[in-house]
């Protein structure tokens, strides 16, 4: 009798667990797998880390709300170690092994370019968070790549914004100092290409190496010219060294930098030397100072408070913002069109008036970036803080 009771008890327990297992599985539909190839470590880690954090945060948030039409999101993030070769391996893995429905990444133009063809051939959408226009437009054929989108503002927009600012202030003679890598070369190209249309004359064109520890020599040359402003196109350490050397030499010109320095690490490195630098930047870093009528303001403040609450003491960054936009644009389209690749691609193309972190996106079949130069505002650094210039 005792044995029978025990047997029954075991049977009941087994039955209950089985039933509950079924009950749990029942409403869940197969998750949507989204892949991401991000520069989490390596030279671009400062950019990639907040991107990864943002993607994880948004995935959790969306899943907590029940996912998309009952489908949870499964976010598969691979680290390419800021290495183009590794980006290729990881992208192939996402396509062939994980069978994702779309890919986000990579962080830099250099790590995105090699995966553009891989994802395009797999015929699934790629939303890059890097800046170069070559990502969405084939530079040889000038055709928009059908499967590729991006959320980071192009260099040409930043350059246009700077030149517009110079025109407004009646400045026409500029000196360039740019770093010799993908970012610096691309910026330099755009600065030269757009100068004539804004009636800007480039009186000096200096360059420096990525690992250089001293740019005094190049700045000394510029000091001897009649340039009214110096435009530096570099990120992180190199940009901070230019700022320091610039101050030490007592350069008479104004210093303008690119949107690439819009992060806390640059302020920490450059310290007092950053004072007075003018740059075009996405609205995220000056969200609180935006007028209440600004369409992006609410979304920006919302992202900022959520991110900083979750990852404190990390500060929200422009780059995390690009990942935010990529995720939102992708999942918005997914909500409307479902996971079928061609429909999803067409839906992303229809993105209209999406007020994100990087600007207000209006995509079309010909424009897979969807931003204008007004994605930027001009900002000045004052005592370690970003200040909006009106």
């Amino acid at each position: 009798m005792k044995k029978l009771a025990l047997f029954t008890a075991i049977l009941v327990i087994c039955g209950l667990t089985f039933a509950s297992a079924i009950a749990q599985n029942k409403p869940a539909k197969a998750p949507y797998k989204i892949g991401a190839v991000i520069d989490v470590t390596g030279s671009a880690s400062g950019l990639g880390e907040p991107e990864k954090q943002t993607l994880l945060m948004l995935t959790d948030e969306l899943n907590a709300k029940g996912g998309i039409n009952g489908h949870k999101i499964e976010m598969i993030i691979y680290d390419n170690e800021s290495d183009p070769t590794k980006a290729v391996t990881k992208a192939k893995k996402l396509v062939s092994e994980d069978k994702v429905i779309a890919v986000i990444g990579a962080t830099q133009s250099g790590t995105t370019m090699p995966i553009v063809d891989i994802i395009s051939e797999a015929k699934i959408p790629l939303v890059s968070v890097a800046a170069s226009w070559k990502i969405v437009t084939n530079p040889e054929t000038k055709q928009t790549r059908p499967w590729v989108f991006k959320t980071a503002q192009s260099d040409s927009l930043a350059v246009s914004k700077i030149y517009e600012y110079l025109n407004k202030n009646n400045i026409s003679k500029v000196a360039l100092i740019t770093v010799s890598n993908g970012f610096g070369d691309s910026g330099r190209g755009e600065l030269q290409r757009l100068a004539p249309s804004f009636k800007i004359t480039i009186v000096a064109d200096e360059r420096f190496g990525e690992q250089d520890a001293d740019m005094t020599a190049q700045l000394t040359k510029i000091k001897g010219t009649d340039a009214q402003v110096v435009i530096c196109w570099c990120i992180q350490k190199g940009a901070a060294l230019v700022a320091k050397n610039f101050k030490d030499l007592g350069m008479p010109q104004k210093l303008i930098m690119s949107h690439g320095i819009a992060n806390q690490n640059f302020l920490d490195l450059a310290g007092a030397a950053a004072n007075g630098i003018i740059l075009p930047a996405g609205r995220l870093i000056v969200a609180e100072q935006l007028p209440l009528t600004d369409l992006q303001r609410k979304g920006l403040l919302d992202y900022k408070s959520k991110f900083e609450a979750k990852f404190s003491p990390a500060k929200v960054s422009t780059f995390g913002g690009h990942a935010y936009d990529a995720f939102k644009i992708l999942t918005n389209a997914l909500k409307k069109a479902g996971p079928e690749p061609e429909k999803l691609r067409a839906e992303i193309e229809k993105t209209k008036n999406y007020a994100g972190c990087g600007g207000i996106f209006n995509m079309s079949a010909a424009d897979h970036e969807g931003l204008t130069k007004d994605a930027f505002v001009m900002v000045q650094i004052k005592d370690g803080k970003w200040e909006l210039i009106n």
Partner: protein
Amino acid sequence: MEWHSQLIQYLATGITTGAIYALVALGFTIIYNSTEIINFAQGEFVMLGGMIAASLLAMAGMPMWAAIMLAIALATLLGVIFEQLAIRPVKNPSVMNLIIITIGGSILLKGAAMIIWGKDDRPLRSFSSSQPLHIFGAAVTPQSLWVMAGTLVAVILLHFFYEYTITGKALRACAYNKKAARLCGISVERMVLFSFALSAAIGALAGILIAPITFTSYDVGTMLGLKGFCAAIFGGLGSNPGAVLGGLVIGALESLSAGYISSGYKDAVAFLIMLLVLYFRPTGILGKRSEKV
């Protein structure tokens, strides 16, 4: 800007970097003299000096001079540990084996630094005001003067140490002939340990002096180490005055080529000079130890 103030500007910049190369080169020389090995971990001690000082200042908020002293002391201790754990226990201590061990040690130190401190660059504040001085139209930061003065003091102290103290003389004896030194009752093992400590200390000093100018990060040691090595080869491996001269010449030429030719070729200058010296005068400019006793 006038041409002569431009020239002075390039030279001032070049001599500052050159002084750092000189200190790194001295580190190579000291160890080479007592062991004949080239310590490729030398650059990592430069990195350690800067990184330890930067984090001491950031964390404990201690005064500058105390942070500097403590950073040098800690780096020296690491140099001693490195010798004790990696160099001394080697069963077959051929020069080649030991050199390869130092390369391994360098990778280990760099990796550990990356894990401990992360990958961001770190600032270190200047020793004194950061208001630049204007000398003949060229701007020289006070930190550059600190670098030059620090190097000068280190070189003078080192000279007196080698010439007038028993330990210094014993080190020199080891450099000339190990067997004879041992026969005179000098403990060669202790001298090797001592030279590792000394070169780690000098490396750390270099790292601390330069950090306010160039920032520091876990990977600064590699390039500084290589440039210091070039300087040591240029001056003649094993010669202290040669190391200093080599550092200054390479630093100045780098800066001049960045100013007058293109900064793209700057790094190539150091290596080109090293190749030329190795080709035409393998003993270096001031090297005398071509025929060993």
